[in-house]
């Protein structure tokens, strides 16, 4: 069904909703089973990034948007990478790092 040139994405949206709900449940589950700390943190951050990506790409329509808009939308990731680099250095040089 396509009205006014806009295709019907309802099914996609519901799949994404299911994925987000399941991933949230998995995230909460992971914290409860008593995993070692470092793999748990890496896993949780990976899952969160997957969820954020799903929201941005499907709900915020980045998948269907013009390249021009994608450049704007993804530009903060450049700054994020600098921050991640700086925080990794901070992590690496912590003297009392106990994870």
């Amino acid at each position, binding site marked *: 069904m396509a009205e006014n040139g*806009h295709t*019907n994405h309802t099914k996609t949206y519901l799949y994404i909703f299911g994925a*987000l709900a399941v991933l949230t449940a998995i995230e909460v589950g992971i914290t409860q089973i008593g995993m070692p700390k470092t793999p748990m*943190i890496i896993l949780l951050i990976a899952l969160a990034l997957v969820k954020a990506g799903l*929201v941005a790409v499907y*709900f915020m329509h980045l998948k269907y948007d013009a390249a021009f808009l994608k450049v*704007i939308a993804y530009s*903060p990731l450049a700054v994020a990478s600098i*921050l991640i680099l700086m925080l990794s250095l*901070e992590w690496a040089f912590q003297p009392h790092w106990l994870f």
Partner: protein
Amino acid sequence: MSELALQTNSGSGDHHAPSHYTSTGTVMGKVFMWLFLCQDALMFMGFFAAYISVRIGTGNLWPSSGAHLPGMEENPLNIPLTALNTFVLICSSVTMVLAVQAAHWKQSKKTILWLALTVIGGSIFLGIQYGEYSHLITKDGMSMGRSLFDATFFALTGFHGIHVFCGVMYLLALVIANAMGHKKSKDLGITEWVFKILSVGLTLFFMIKLMGSWKDGGWFLKYVLIVPISAFMAFNLPMVGLALFLWFVPFAHYPPIPHVLLSLIFGSLPYIFYRGVKWLRAREDMGDVVEVAGLYWHFVDLIWIILFTLVYLI
């Protein structure tokens, strides 16, 4: 110099209606909303980076929901409740995206329904967060100045909460605009004056109440200078006044600043809300307008997904 020369449109053919499209063919509102979201993302990134940096520095002393090691403090945060809150926000994101779809298809009733459900979802989120806050503050004794854990928690969740509140207001204005239907009017109607006077009255009310609690200020400074200036701002330029005063947020410790800020923000709400509804009602491309609002709402959801993982789960 005609208006047309100032517009970068892709030629809509109609010389009187301003085009809402940029020369790239993308809706102008979408470009501006993405630019706004970019700078907002940078702001959140600053908060997140500070939080992570502080956590790296404290290591195992940080109260964590995960593996409980000896010497680790008990985590006061309620994970199941917040997981429920996350679920509520995800649900409201789905209703929002369905509202955008319905708006593009010009299904007015469905748009209103999905938008209203989104507003309800956002309100439930805020309600749960209010309950969580009051429990943490009264039962667990958390406060901004007690510890790094408390400070980062309140800064991150509070800043996000303000975003949710603004989003709920934004979507509520859209619901009302959709329900009242399209109307283009440039004149200052009686309703506008009612809202304007209501706003000025509210600002004055807050102002005089807050000035009474400021013990150090002299009466001349308080009631002859600051109150009338605030009333003038609330009457003439509430939005500009707000924007100007946001620059004073870093000085929110110094007496007249928080008083003026708070009374202008809460006093101007009714008028700004009215203007928002009026502006939204004048727009013909409701599909694009709802889509832009959707971008904001999904961004708030996206931030919460990261915040929930970093602050609550890890």
